[in-house]
């Protein structure tokens, strides 16, 4: 490789700076959401923000670190349950409890990762599902948190955020937007760093990366636990938004893995643009086909299979066929 070892950005593709400006403009417009969007639109946008963030995190695992997890619902559920436990049982203020819940989730992710990393590839994937099931079944055994039937967040704790409903809802909206923006920009910076170079190497050819001195297992471990931490934070946010958690909702494989994977895969994994496109596609599709019920999921399944068989790079891959544009410059020219 002709890359100079000192500067990981050597050879980094430069594109029009307009792209960064567009991104900033969109984020600014979204930040002003509470002043222009209706309550219903804001609820939908919050959901869009956290689903897109989950999809980007899954993309980081599957598209870059080569770790395919079917058990990310473990960390969403843990984040939610830790938030409720800290707030209801320990009386911690909601906004303080959120980062604490994320930390607690990451602490449980450590031993989980230790065990899961004993398996490779597809077995890792199914193993992660077992771990998520263990947490779901264990949560159903905790009587203080409602056991199998779940628990609601009493209104007084939420009202402590602010007396005004508008400010409360805006706060949750801004937190969701901030997490999404931080994950997007953080991933962008990560992928442009030396770490990103190593991750891209692992993605492209694991053996070659290993031979070039990349510590594949260590990088994977850190990415997995880091993703679990942020997933826990999002889990806390989701159930603060929903105000009620049950083992089935918290650890739902459909909501927090199937749909998330669909968004990442249909948009195109291994790129930052793909999941954004995928999230827009998913929400448009859902608004159109919401009445179809079970058939909606049949269509999702068929679309996933079709993408994998015919254009594994997803919708963004289709765009790339037409024109090689890029918003997030993370690729390198050798």
């Amino acid at each position, binding site marked *: 490789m002709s890359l100079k070892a000192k500067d990981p950005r050597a050879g980094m593709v430069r594109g029009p700076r307009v792209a960064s400006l567009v991104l900033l403009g969109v984020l600014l417009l979204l930040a002003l959401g509470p002043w222009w969007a209706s309550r219903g639109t804001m609820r939908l946008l919050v959901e869009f923000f956290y689903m897109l963030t989950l999809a980007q995190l899954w993309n980081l695992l*599957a598209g870059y670190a*080569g770790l*395919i997890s*079917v058990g990310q619902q473990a960390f969403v559920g843990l984040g939610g349950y830790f938030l409720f436990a800290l707030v209801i049982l320990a009386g911690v203020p909601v906004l303080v409890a959120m980062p604490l819940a994320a930390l607690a989730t990451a602490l449980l992710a450590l031993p989980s990762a230790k*065990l899961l990393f*004993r*398996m*490779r*590839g*597809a*077995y890792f*994937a*199914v*193993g992660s*599902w*077992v*771990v998520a*099931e*263990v947490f779901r*079944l*264990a949560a*159903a*055994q905790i009587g203080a948190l409602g056991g199998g039937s779940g628990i609601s967040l009493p209104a007084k704790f939420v009202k402590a955020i602010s007396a005004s409903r508008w400010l409360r809802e805006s706060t949750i909206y801004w937190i969701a937007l901030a997490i999404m923006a931080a994950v997007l920009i953080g991933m962008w910076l990560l992928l442009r760093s030396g770490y990103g170079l190593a991750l891209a190497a692992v993605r492209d050819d694991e053996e070659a990366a290993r031979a070039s001195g990349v510590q594949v297992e260590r990088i994977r471990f850190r990415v997995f636990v880091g993703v679990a931490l942020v997933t826990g934070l999002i889990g806390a946010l989701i159930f603060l938004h929903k105000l009620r958690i049950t083992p089935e909702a918290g650890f739902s*494989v459909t909501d927090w893995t*199937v749909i998330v*994977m669909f968004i990442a*895969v249909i948009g195109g*994994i291994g790129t930052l643009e793909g999941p954004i496109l995928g999230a827009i596609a998913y929400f448009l599709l859902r608004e159109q086909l919401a009445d179809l*019920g*079970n*058939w909606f*999921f*049949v269509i*999702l*399944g*068929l*679309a*996933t*299979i079709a*993408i*994998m*068989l015919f254009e*594994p790079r997803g919708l963004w891959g289709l765009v790339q066929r037409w024109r090689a544009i890029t918003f997030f410059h993370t690729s390198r020219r050798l």
Partner: protein
Amino acid sequence: MLADMMNTLIQGIMLGGLYGLFAAGLSLMFGVMRIVNLAHGDFIVMAAYMALVAVTALGLHPLLTLFIVVPLMAGFGYFGQRLALNRVVGTGLLAPLMVTFGLSIIIQNLLLELFSADSRRLPLPGLDTASIPLPGGISIGVVPLMMFAVAVAVLAGLGWFFRHTMTGRLLRAVSDDPEIVGLMGADRRHLYAIATGLAAAVVGIAGVLMAVKTNFDPLSGPTRLLFAFEAVIIGGMGSLWGTLLGGVILGLAQAIGARIDPGIQILAGHVAFLAILAIRPQGILGRGEAP
């Protein structure tokens, strides 16, 4: 008290036979093609619904539905492999997982649409409650014993097939080195389809037995996938009898868990799996590397 304990253990072992059958199909597909079929559990549940339809529409005895379900499943496996899965064999990790996961979601939702979310079961009149009494207050249920015997017979049959038939040997060869076998003139696409057809036939047997033994609903597939997977890892990959042993250990853990508290039956099985993963990641009968 002792007799109770013995009965629990016997139930666990017999249940393990069914789990061994669940595991055999999963292990077979992974062994030959290095594919983990995430729709495996949904295939099992689909076979159970086929049996249900055969019983209600044709008035067949539940066990006689095997003669319909097994060939149908084998055909489904063969053509599913030729039409879709062959395109993703050997393309890496993501595509096979995503395609089978997509299939899993499709099957679950079609079953929901066709049969509603109600829990179903196929009763065996007269046999359901029959048991063979043994000295000391111990007894073995007829249905569980029959299931265990079928599991042993199927695994023995698979073992014989892989050792003594041309197709079986070719399947082992293609597992060891697909490139060379292709160069030798064997049709890999056909061999892969045979492997999936065979796995689906075993799934057909497992599905009918499950329908007779326990309740099932359209969404109960993933749990069955996890049981199959756990049995494979506990027993040690690449070993047919290992899958049975893994199934038995999983069945025992669940039976003992259920005896302590019915709410933790499944959890106890998962915990046993994780414990074995921590202590002996290559599985009990596995040799060499971890999975």
